[in-house]
């Protein structure tokens, strides 16, 4: 069995017959000097200007892209070095948004929750520059994470649209426009991040409809993933199988795979990007442990449909821990591939009841 969409990311010099695509969700710890550079840039009394700040971000993006490469990942990201927060970053680039100041998330953690005050519009590209820079810094395929329209809508104040559903679809059309631009620029791997779905799982139909807007006229070979982090997956499965995406990227290591069974019945028909390292634990799991985690994925899908990734963005981990997790994750994936090649892995997937009868 082959999987053309996934296999386009298979490196030419890949040693094993089996191929478990290794990648990351997106964010990565920023180097300390980048935060310092930002402070200098924001300090009106300092000569550190726009050009210096741009150069600092370029340096950081190059550094982290290469760090991903060094860890051996098959598809890399720049660690989202240019992005501050997953909603703010996009809201600054979308016409119709305005910022009114920080709001509380918990304790003394705040974010600049933006307000949609008029029709949202697409003006300049959001991510093409970021993509082109990253692509030029590596020979590996580059994955582009984009905050999904449902999350962009849910985590904003909505002053302009009838309800958040309407706003979601309007934003989805803009995401579609952006993906078209990214594809033109050469991107082949897009990941839509919808963490807000975890808190309001009953809205899965809205997310599904938004994805239809997002993939409209996007060529088949472009890989579209959907990342949903920790929540009660039984409330969105199997409905999400109807979504027009190639891959679901799920957080499961954090719950020690207690939700794995949810995905066994009915049969998981898409590719599964399985979270195999826990991003909330600041210790690097051993290669052996991660191998066991990867094998959990094989209880749900055959190797052709399995992708290996951390649970979520790793930006809150110490950088050396984040790197250690990537490195061990890749080594574990290669070991499992070799074991699969050698026929040493015998995992039986349950025969699920057919979805349609």
């Amino acid at each position, binding site marked *: 069995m082959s999987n053309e969409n996934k296999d386009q990311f298979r490196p030419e010099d890949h040693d094993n017959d089996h191929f478990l695509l290794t990648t990351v969700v997106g964010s990565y710890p920023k180097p300390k000097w980048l935060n310092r550079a930002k402070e200098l840039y924001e300090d009106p009394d300092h000569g550190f200007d726009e050009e210096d700040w741009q150069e600092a971000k370029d340096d950081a993006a190059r550094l982290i892209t290469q760090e991903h490469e060094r860890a051996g990942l098959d598809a890399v990201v720049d660690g989202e070095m240019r992005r501050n927060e997953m909603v703010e970053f996009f809201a600054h680039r979308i016409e119709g948004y305005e910022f*009114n100041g*920080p709001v*509380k998330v918990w304790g*003394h*953690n705040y974010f600049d929750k933006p307000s949609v005050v008029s029709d949202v519009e697409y003006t300049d590209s959001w991510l093409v520059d970021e993509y082109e820079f990253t692509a030029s810094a590596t020979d590996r395929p580059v994955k582009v994470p984009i905050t999904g329209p449902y999350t962009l809508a849910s985590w904003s104040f909505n*002053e302009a649209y009838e309800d958040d559903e309407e706003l979601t679809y309007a934003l989805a059309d803009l995401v579609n426009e952006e993906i078209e631009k990214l594809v033109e620029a050469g991107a082949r791997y897009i990941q839509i991040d919808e963490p807000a779905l975890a*808190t309001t799982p009953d809205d899965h139909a809205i997310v599904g409809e938004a994805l239809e807007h997002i993939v409209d006229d996007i060529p088949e070979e472009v890989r579209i993933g959907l990342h949903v982090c920790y929540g009660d997956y039984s409330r969105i499965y199997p409905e999400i199988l109807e979504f027009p995406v190639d891959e679901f990227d799920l957080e499961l290591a954090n719950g020690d795979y207690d939700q794995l069974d949810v995905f066994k019945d009915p049969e998981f028909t898409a590719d599964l990007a399985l979270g195999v390292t826990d991003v909330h634990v600041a210790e690097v799991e051993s290669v052996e442990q991660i191998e066991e985690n990867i094998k959990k994925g094989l209880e749900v899908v055959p190797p052709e449909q399995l992708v290996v990734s951390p649970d979520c963005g790793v930006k809150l981990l110490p950088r050396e821990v984040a790197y250690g997790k990537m490195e061990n994750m890749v080594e574990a994936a290669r070991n499992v591939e070799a074991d699969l090649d050698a026929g040493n892995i015998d995992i039986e997937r349950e025969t699920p009841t057919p979805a349609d009868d």
Partner: protein
Amino acid sequence: MTEYVSTTPGLYPLPDWAKDDLSDLKGHQKHDLISGDEGEEITAAYEEARQEVIGVQEEAGLDRIVEGQLRWDDMLAHPLAVHDNVETRGIVRYYDNNNFYREPVVQGELDASGDVANELESAAAVTDGDLQAVLPGPYSLADLATDEQYGDDAEFLGAIADFLEAEAEAFPEVETLFLLEPSLVENAPEDGQDERASEAIDQVATAVDADVVVQPYWGALEEKVYAHLLDADIDAVGFDFVANQDDNLYNIQEYGATDDAALGLADGQNTLVEDPEAIRDRVEWVEDKLQVTEFETVYLTTNTETFYLPYGKFEEKLEVLAEAAELAEVKAA
């Protein structure tokens, strides 16, 4: 003749300078949050911020002044989170919001702590306005907490009611007490539980010599829950007309109402600032729909707490409420 009173359910956002100063003084992690025995510098920052939000209310012309509950890092769970016999554990989601609080786990007797009364004393010292106290309702506070002491839901609710009653008894003189009860909507009590919730509310309400408003939000109460709530000795029920109009009207039409009512007509969770005239019109609309009912006092308020808003928008909302109450008063006169 209806009296229109502009007020808020409290739990304000911190002024932006205080967000910065207090996160520097306290830190960003779980164990950095308010403990009830904070030191001088932190106390001073809160005092200054309290004075500021009281000034904002006075300036806006609100008819009731709240302390602001700026120290309530854990939102409605605050009175337990600072209690000596309560351990705070991991951060958990605050209802359906993108907000979190420390899970308070009750591990010993819930004796009176005086924390909220102290805040009110501090507020009373800096304003001559009519003071309004704010507490979580007993049902919501029990719902937000975990019990490892009492072992039984009914007993735990009773203990929470005793605790809140003792807190309220220690209050300085206040004009009004708002008991916030979002859990009555969000996690509606079942048969038997609804009656106990009402009794618990009654117990807290009778502890103060003030008008008591019970404000549920994020929707309308289920019929039975509403009917039981009316049995409590309270002066007003609050209605979240931002989240749900039909079911709230239905409840009032079918079961009647208290002599006073609180109308949540300004959205505490959206930066869109309502026109005072629009709020006044909504009051009229509600009154039109309820031909037979004439309330003695109508509190005009945001439906929810306001800490969800950026500070500038929060200030604007207060001004709108004050102005809307004046407009309604003029119209009624």
